[in-house]
């Protein structure tokens, strides 16, 4: 399949997750909604069900969700609730609700209350002291709860063997996405910011084996091409989410390519793999423990500035000239880490801009002006 056709497929999935869901339903599969962040999707896959990421919506307006939360909450969470309330997500058979930020904590209760009697909500609390043995054990305990709830929905036990297979599928998928990030940068004349974003976004709505197969095809096609003779600029993107095609189009219009990303719904979950041998539950717990450099996660070496140093290194190694931080409005964790990120970027002489975004944005004029100006200083 040509690059163009493959990209069109990814875009179709990214733009119409509902079609994807309907197709899975037609195959008799059950679908589990997976809210951010770090839910062990492997368990859903191993249960023979389809995990689908729920990262808000770029097209909907918040209306019914106002019955549950005040305005000062991240629109990703509010729009997830909106879609649960307005029937958009009626296709789901279950919902995993992680609670790693202060918005998701009370929202887990709102999701459960709003869906009472309609949709099983599976609660998930991750530990922050995740690396010591007791932290790993806590993760295993929580994942065991998720597992048993999923088993109730699927009606069959999740075997260790199925889970090990799922881990292999997910490792392969993460490897393909890591590779894609590099190839997308090398071939940024072919992979626009809009397309790159669609490829990542599609990963949340496809069974990972199907997705990986398609992505590996795309990677193979890209590898055949000569490296781009790119005369534009390159940046690293950072933030929780930047999947709005209109926003990405501004980058493309200004000849700004994405060299790498530090984005929660793109590469952040792809950094670490799980062990394919041994106890698979512990492998998943260890994988979560190994996650690092994330605004959402506690850093034992708090007095150092490891996350920002990691980002600086990413910018340098990726060949980017600057960084664009898509600051999700009302995202405390991201906001709390910004001053030290800024400090490290400034110290390394890396230009950056912080662009406030949310999913209710309909006018991109300001963002366009800011990015245009930023491209000029790179």
């Amino acid at each position, binding site marked *: 399949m040509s690059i163009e056709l493959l990209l069109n497929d990814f875009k179709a999935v990214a733009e119409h997750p509902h079609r994807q869901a309907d197709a899975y339903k037609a195959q008799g599969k059950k679908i589990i909604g997976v809210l951010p962040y770090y839910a062990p999707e492997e368990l859903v896959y191993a249960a023979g069900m389809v995990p689908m990421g729920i990262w808000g919506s770029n097209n909907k307006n918040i209306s019914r969700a106002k019955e549950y939360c*005040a305005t000062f909450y991240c629109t990703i969470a509010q729009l997830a609730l909106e879609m649960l309330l307005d029937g958009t997500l009626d296709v789901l058979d279950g919902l995993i609700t992680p609670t790693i930020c202060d918005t998701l904590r009370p929202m887990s209760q*709102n999701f459960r209350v709003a869906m009472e009697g309609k949709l099983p909500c599976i609660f998930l609390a991750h530990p*922050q002291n995740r690396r010591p043995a007791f932290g790993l054990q806590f993760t295993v305990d929580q994942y065991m709860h998720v597992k048993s709830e999923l088993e109730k929905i699927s009606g069959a036990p999740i075997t260790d063997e199925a889970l090990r297979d799922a881990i292999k599928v997910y490792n392969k998928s993460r490897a393909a996405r890591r590779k894609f990030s590099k190839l997308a940068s090398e071939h940024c004349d072919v992979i626009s910011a809009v397309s790159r974003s669609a490829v990542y976004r599609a990963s949340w709505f496809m069974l990972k084996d199907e997705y990986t197969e398609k992505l590996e095809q795309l990677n193979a096609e890209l590898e055949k091409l000569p490296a781009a003779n790119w005369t534009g600029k390159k940046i690293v993107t950072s933030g929780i989410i930047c999947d709005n095609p209109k926003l990405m189009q501004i980058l493309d219009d200004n000849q700004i390519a994405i060299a790498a990303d530090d984005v929660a719904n793109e590469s952040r979950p792809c950094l670490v793999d799980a062990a394919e041998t041994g106890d698979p539950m512990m492998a998943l717990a260890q994988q979560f423990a190994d996650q690092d450099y994330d605004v959402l996660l506690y850093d034992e070496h708090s007095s150092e500035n490891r996350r920002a140093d990691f980002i600086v290194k990413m910018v340098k190694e990726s060949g980017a000239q600057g960084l664009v931080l898509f600051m999700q409005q009302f995202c405390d964790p991201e906001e709390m880490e910004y001053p030290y990120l800024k400090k490290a970027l400034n110290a390394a002489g890396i230009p950056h801009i912080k662009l406030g975004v949310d999913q209710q944005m309909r006018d991109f004029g300001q963002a366009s002006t800011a990015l245009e100006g930023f491209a000029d200083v790179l």
Partner: protein
Amino acid sequence: MAKTVSPGVLALRKVVDDVYADARKAKAEGKLVGWSSSKFPCELAEAFDLNVMYPENQAAGIAAQRDGEIMCQAAEDLGFDNDICGYARISLAYAAGKRAARKFDPETLEFIIDPNSGKPLKDENGKVVIDPATGKPKKDPKTQVPYTVLDDIHEIEALPETTEKEIAYKNFRREAIKPYKQMRIPQPDFVLCCNNICNCMTKWYENIARMCNIPLIMIDIPYNNTVEVADTNVAYVRAQFDKAIHQLEELTGKKFDEKKFEAACANANRTAKDWLKVCDYLQYKPAPYSGFDLFNHMADVVTARGKVAAAEAFEQLEKDLEETIKKGESTTPFPEQYRVMFEGIPCWPKLPNLFKPLKANGVNVTAVVYAPAFGFVYNNIDEMARAYYKAPNSVCIEQGVAWREGICKDNKVDGVLVHYNRSCKPWSGYMAEMQRRFTKDLGIPCAGFDGDQADPRNFNEAQYETRVQGLVEAMDANKAKEGNK
């Protein structure tokens, strides 16, 4: 007439003053001083005789002293977004060395008085004196204060001190930092973080650790979805206690003193029981005091619950309240017509504005969520882990509702006033559903208003007054309905 303050209240104030004074003294003597989140297990620090300051309590104090805005702004200038919790912003600005100070003339070393500050001057008959030049009331010079400016301790310490003039200037600038206790807490040598109250705490304390290059001891208490705390969750917290003890041993070079730990636990339990008893006096109708006072006594529960002095001070207050009840009196400065639960942390910079329409309408606060949230009692270390699992914002909606409906019933409230606190996402995040449940389960009206615990810019007085008025009307309607039955 000056408001009389009971011996118990005076004792409670002294306990907190002593905690601050002891920390300043410890620092001056070269001892370690830590900063701790309000619901970190203080029993652990007590076992090592550590002096600990509480940034949340400090930030509330700074906000109540009207310096919340300048400190929040200082944090924003450091890059912290104005959506971040106001306590965190104040604390982070302070940790970075920012201070609210009194403006002075660098030549004369005299404070520059803000002409808009102070209370109106009154004549011998108690009448306000009008300035003939402006036609406006004259200010009482005794009550006027200097302009507030932002200063930075690192800038001050970097100043030269070679000439006498330089030395005098430097010293004056140090002294110009506002003299109240919360603006004079020592910089931390270590931080104790427990995120049971919120996850913002995690990154807040990491930032402090980074700014000051100091160790952080972290006790992570994830959010809980059930009323019961599972044994597996207790095991996780219990293991973290052991790790924290080990880290404190390394930090202090001392062995963990089991006896001191047990004494601190006994004190914490005693304080909690006494705190609850004091809170329970609000069950009397009319209540012997205004529940707003509990917000002030919170400082003792937060900063000194592991100390015997706190328990004794609450016991004194209990005696005072017993007397008040016997005499059939109340310290509430108005006749109580309605009784409400105040939901959330108060808007500290706007306490008088919060109080005004309540007083005008005879609305007494007779229930606050802090009562059950801090009144936790335990018998052993596993129970202690379980107790710390239940913080105001770490419990599921059913537990949160049960706590609140319990005190609403016990304290016989007629309505609920809900603070949608811009600073506190975990607290405000399920209040809409809670309001529906209060009304359904208890048949009482609720009214919400927008505000902030520390940043005065997020409070709209007109909206608040309208909402209080609406609540009063709804309570009236309810009472009329009851009367017709």
